[in-house]
């Protein structure tokens, strides 16, 4: 098991900064996802760790040893590519044996390790097939086994599920996570899919514009986002901009339109510089409850109602703007109905001011 640390990692393409001095520590056996929109630098980060991209400045350390100047073939990494990148002219067995042959492992050991890796990903019946004769999910598992059979220091995955259909993707998500836990290998996983990042990771690293916006446990990224941008990228977010009535050690009191006060617990959000008389508060759709008209803290009118199987999604027009709310299917509310919205103050999350560059 290996510790990975990125120290002020910087990557310039000409004058454009793809990575602006990012630092990140990944501990033994941790599963970390790099999550962000395309162009945010997550794939560049992975390529730098793998050694396929030269870094402009900073250091990459495995177990405190600087490996920044090492060639990819000397870094002892296992990598899974979006396209799987299986060797098309080799059978499953030959694909798995390749890395071990490069390491000059004795023949008998190769056979044993390949067989056990094949069993691990349940591909033993397909040992002599060529990649072309395998389904997408099977190819994915070969790629995974090929990366793991060499027992690398770390495992890197570059959007490995992007080419699979939805159902298989869900299946593979659990499969990869279970396998990673069983092997206990330090893993860095790149994805643009927040669901994937949430369900699989010990820690999610949200990246925007070549910088780390937040690195925290999935629950924290979701419930306590570091910025409005993170809040909006990770799931649906209702942002209410509310006037501040007062503040003390127990938190801040804001007022909803109509005069109902809401007490927000203090948080790590930095003090508001620009407009100290207002506070931006995030509420997730499932944290707002629909109640009868006249009840709750904020009146509203149902504009849209979408049934989506497990729950119902509503767009509710309020004086704070249109809010996105989800509710149970047992609730009978129709479009046009007047309702009340009820907030649980303990679950509202105050956001810092949008960064200046976001305001433009």
């Amino acid at each position, binding site marked *: 098991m290996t510790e990975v640390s990125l120290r002020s990692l910087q990557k310039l393409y000409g004058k454009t900064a793809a990575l602006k001095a990012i630092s990140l520590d990944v501990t033994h056996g941790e599963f970390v996802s790099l999550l962000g929109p395309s162009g945010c630098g997550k794939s560049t980060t992975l390529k730098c760790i793998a050694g396929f991209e030269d870094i402009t400045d900073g250091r990459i350390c495995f177990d405190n040893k600087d490996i920044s100047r090492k060639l990819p*073939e000397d870094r002892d990494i296992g*990598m899974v590519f979006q*396209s799987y990148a299986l060797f*098309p002219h080799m059978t499953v067995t030959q694909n798995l044996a390749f890395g071990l042959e490069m*390491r000059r492992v004795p023949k008998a050991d190769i056979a044993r390790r390949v067989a056990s890796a094949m069993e691990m990903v349940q591909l033993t019946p397909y040992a002599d097939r*060529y990649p072309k004769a395998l389904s997408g999910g099977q190819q994915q598992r070969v790629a995974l086994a090929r990366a793991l059979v*060499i027992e690398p220091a770390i495992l*890197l995955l570059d959007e490995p599920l992007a080419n699979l259909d939805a159902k298989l993707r869900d299946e593979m998500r659990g499969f990869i996570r279970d396998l990673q836990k069983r092997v206990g290998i330090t893993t860095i996983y790149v994805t643009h899919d927040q669901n994937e990042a949430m369900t699989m990771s010990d820690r999610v690293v949200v990246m925007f514009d070549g910088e780390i916006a937040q690195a925290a446990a999935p629950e924290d990224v979701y419930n306590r986002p570091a910025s409005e941008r993170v809040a909006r990228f990770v799931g649906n977010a209702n942002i209410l901009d509310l006037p501040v009535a007062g503040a003390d050690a127990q938190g801040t009191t804001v007022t909803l339109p109509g005069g109902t006060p809401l007490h927000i617990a203090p948080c790590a959000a930095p003090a508001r510089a620009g407009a100290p008389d207002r506070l931006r508060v995030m509420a997730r759709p499932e944290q707002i409850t629909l109640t009868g008209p006249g009840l709750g803290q904020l009146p509203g009118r149902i504009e849209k109602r979408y049934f989506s199987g497990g729950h119902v999604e509503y767009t509710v027009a309020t004086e704070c703007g249109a809010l996105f709310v989800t509710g149970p299917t047992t609730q009978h509310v129709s479009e046009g109905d007047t309702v009340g919205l009820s907030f649980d103050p303990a679950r509202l999350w105050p956001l810092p001011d949008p960064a200046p560059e976001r305001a433009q």
Partner: protein
Amino acid sequence: MKRFRASLLIAPVAALIFVFVILPYVTVLIMSFRATADGQPYGQGFSVEGYQQFFSQPYYALSLPSSLALGMATTLVCLILGYPIALHIATASRKWRGLLYGIVLSPLLVGIVVRSYGWTILLGNSGVINATLRNLGLIDRPLPLMYNNFGVVLALAHVFLPFMVLPLLSSLQSIDPAIAQAARSLGARRFTIFRRVTFPVSMPGVQAGCILVFVLAISSYVTPSLVGGMRVKTTTLLVIDALIDQYQWPFGSAMALILAVSAGLVVLIFARLTRMKWT
């Protein structure tokens, strides 16, 4: 009914192939079994004289293995020269690729007669190369660069190089670049990646290019006759001699068929030896 209507779409091509490929072959096949005659292209009745004539005279019979060897040598030279070119173009930036493509294709823009004649100017006994070397005092007698197999293979390789490079290129360009990265991440170094991954994965292109160049080289007429002169007699040259100069149609037809079948066999054996189970 629907299938029948759809099959009508290939009718024009089928008709074309029938009239210009199958019928001529049948005609040649029949002609090769005609009796020979004096003062006439062919005589009455049928015989195997044409085939006997070929195999009984070493001058003709031996032209076959040497023609096949000439074709293989040309193919090999094209492969050795063409592979690095294709590899280079495949990995070149988009900006350069167009130019490099143009350079590779440029021999095709000049007629084959002109290109072959160009080689005679370079390789002749008083040609550019020999004259220069002599003036520099490096040689007393001209080097035998022309009127031999060396000159013919060189000129043929130049003429047919694009037919090797293009299939190689399309094969190399279709390889997922992540495959080489995967090999690196597994610990393979550059040459190992080439030997164990890039080259084997480009085999469809190697196969296509080799077959194309071999078939073209073996059936070429202009280049061997210009650069080879009277000394290099390929079977193709002998076929033309028999048909046009000696007016022996059955003999010429028999030779043409023997050459076609032999070349076909070589291609078949090559395809079997390089068979890819993974495509």
